[in-house]
C-alpha cells in the first residue's frame, strides 16, 4: 500500500515534470524539468528493484545527456527567451492525436492485454548476472555499443567543430 502511494507520488512527479518539459515556454526550465523527470524515472527503477539501472540512469541521463542539452542550449544562445511561441502551428493537431494514441495505447496495453505476470523475487545476484550477460550472450551488442559511442563522438566532434577556414 505504501509502495503504491510512493509509486503514485513518484509517477505524478515524473509525469508532471515531463508535462512541463513539453509545455514550458522557457527552454532552460524545460531542461531542468527534464532532469527532474529523469530522476523520477530513476526512482521508479528503484521501486522496480533495478538499482543498477537507476544508477546508470542518473549517471548517463542526468550526468551526460542533460548536461549535453544544457550545453547545447547555451551554445545556441538566445533561444530560451520566450519572445516567439515555443509551439509550432501543428501543436493542436499534435496534442489531439497524441491523446488519441495515448488512449489507444492505454486501452490495449493496460486494459486489454493480460500480461504473463509471475510473482517472483528478483535474484540477489542480478548485477553479477547482468555483468556476465554483457560479456556473455550479449557481448556483441556490448561491443557494438562501444563502436557506436566512438563513432558518435567522432561524428559529433566533426560536425560541431568550429569552422577552420
Amino acid at each position, binding site marked *: 500500500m505504501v509502495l503504491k502511494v510512493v509509486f503514485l507520488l513518484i509517477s505524478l512527479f515524473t509525469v508532471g515534470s515531463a508535462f512541463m518539459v513539453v509545455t514550458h515556454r522557457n527552454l532552460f526550465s524545460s531542461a531542468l524539468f527534464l532532469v527532474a523527470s529523469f530522476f523520477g524515472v530513476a526512482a521508479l527503477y528503484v521501486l522496480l528493484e533495478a538499482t543498477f539501472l537507476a544508477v546508470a540512469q542518473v549517471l548517463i541521463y542526468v550526468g551526460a545527456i542533460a548536461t549535453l542539452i544544457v550545453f547545447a542550449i547555451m551554445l545556441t544562445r538566445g533561444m530560451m527567451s520566450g519572445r516567439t511561441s515555443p509551439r509550432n502551428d501543428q501543436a493542436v493537431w499534435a496534442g489531439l492525436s497524441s491523446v488519441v494514441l495515448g488512449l489507444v495505447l492505454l486501452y490495449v496495453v493496460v486494459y486489454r492485454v493480460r500480461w504473463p505476470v509471475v510473482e517472483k523475487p528478483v535474484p540477489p545476484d542480478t548485477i553479477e548476472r547482468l555483468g556476465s550477460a554483457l560479456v*556473455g550472450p550479449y557481448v556483441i551488442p556490448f561491443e*557494438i555499443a562501444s563502436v*557506436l559511442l566512438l563513432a558518435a563522438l567522432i561524428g559529433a566532434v*566533426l*560536425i560541431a567543430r568550429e569552422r577552420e577556414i
Partner: protein
Amino acid sequence: MFDTSTFIRLLPELILLVTALVVIFVDLYARRRTALGLLPGLSIVGLALSFLAVFAQWGTREVVAQTLAADTFAAFFKMVAAVAVILVVLASVRYMRARTRYVGEFYAFLLVATLAVYIAVSARDLITLYLGLETLSIVSYVLTGFLRDDKRSNEAAIKYFLYGAVASAIMLYGFSLLYGVTGTTDLQEIARRLLNGDVLVNMEWLAWPAIVLVTVGFAFKASLVPFHQWAPDAYEGAPTPVTMFLSTVSKATGFAVMARMFLVAMPALQSSWTALLYGLAVLTMTLGNLIALRQTSVKRMLAYSSIAHAGFILMGLVAVTTALGQPFNGLDGVLMYVVAYAFTNAGAFAVVAAVEDGTGGATLDHFAGLVGRAPFLAAAMLIFLLSLAGVPPLAGFAAKLFVFAPVVRQEYYVLAVVALINAVLAAGYYLKVVKQMFFVEEPERAPFAVARSMRWALWLMIIAVFGVGIFMNWFAFMASQGAAGMLGL
C-alpha cells in the same frame, strides 16, 4: 563460448572494424596528399577482403555468439552491402575531395556503417537488431550531415535525425511490448513462445499494435510510405555518394531486418503483417511514383523513385510463401530486387554525382543534352534508368520478374494491377530524363570529363546491371539459397 570459430565467423565484421581504424590512423598520420590517394584504396581493400570473407563462408548456417546468425540470408545482404559500398567509395573520391577536408573520417564512417549493416542483417536478437539499426542510423546521420558547412546537408541530417529518433523510439516501444508478452529477445524464441496458447490469447490484442509499432522502425529504414518523408529531403541534401549509400544499402538493410523479424519471429502472425505490408506496398509505390513525376531535380526524382521501388520490393514480402525452397517464393524476389536495385540505383546516383561534379547541379536542366557533353555518362544513365524501368535484359527486369511472380502466384490481382500501373508511371519520369539527355541538344554547353574512379565505378555497375539481367540464373541461385537459409536458426 568464444572460440576460434566464432572469430572466423566474425572475420568480415572484424576486417571492417580494423580497416576503419586503419583508415582513421592513416588519415591522422599520413601526409594529406598521400592520404587522399591511399584512403579510398584502403577502404576498398578492406571491403573487398570482407566481401571475400563472407563469400568464403557462403552456405554456413549457424548461430554466432548467440545473437548473430551466420546464414546465407545475412551473407547475401553483406555481400551486396560490401559491393555497394565499394561503388560508393569509388564514386565519392572526387566528389568528397572537392567538398570536405575530413575524407578519412568519411571513409571510416562508411566502413562503420557497413559494419552496422552486417550486424543488423545477421541479428537474431531484438537487442542486437536494435543496436545494429541504430548504429547504422547514427552513422548515417553523421554521413548525411557530413558537409557541415552546407545548409542542405545539415538540414537533411537534422530531418533524418529527428525522424529516425522518433521512428526508432516507436519501434522500441513495440519491441518492449514484444518482450513483455514473450519474455525474451531472441527472435527464434519469440516465434516459439508466440505459438504457445496463453501467449496467443494475449497476442490477440497485442499482435496488431506490436506489428504496427515495430514496422514503423523498419518502414522508416526502408522508407515506405507513409514513413518515407525524411527520405526525399535527406537524399537530396546529403552528399550524393551518401545518397547512394542510403538509397541502396541502408534501405536494403531495412528490408533484411523486416524480413527476418516477420518471418523468423512472427510467422504465426503472418496474416496480420501481410495485410499491413500489402497496404504499405500499394501506398509506397503509388505515392512515390506520383510525386516523382513532378520533380525537376533529378536527384530528388531518383529519391522518390527509390521510395517507389521500395514498394516493389515489399511486394515480394507481401506475397512471401513460407516454402522458401521453391523459386519465386517472394523472399528470393526481395533479394533479387535488392541486388539489382543496389547496382542500378547506386549507378544512377553515381551519375548524378558525376553530373554535379561536371555541371554544378542535378536538376533536369543540368542533364540537357548530356549525350553531347559526356556521352559515357549519358549512356550509363540510360542503362540505369532502363534497368530501373524494368526493361530486359537489364537487372531491373530480373528484379521485377522475381517480385511480380509471387504476387501472381498468390493471386493478389489488385496488387499486380497497381504494380503494373506504377511500372508505367515510373517509366514516364525516367524517360523524362532520357529525353533531356538525348533528345534535347545543347551544342553551346561544353563537354566535361569524368573522374577515373567514377568511370571505374560506372563500368562496374554497368557490367553488374547487364550481368544480373543476363545471368539472372546465377543471382537467382544465390537469392534462393539466401532465402532458404534464413529460417530455422
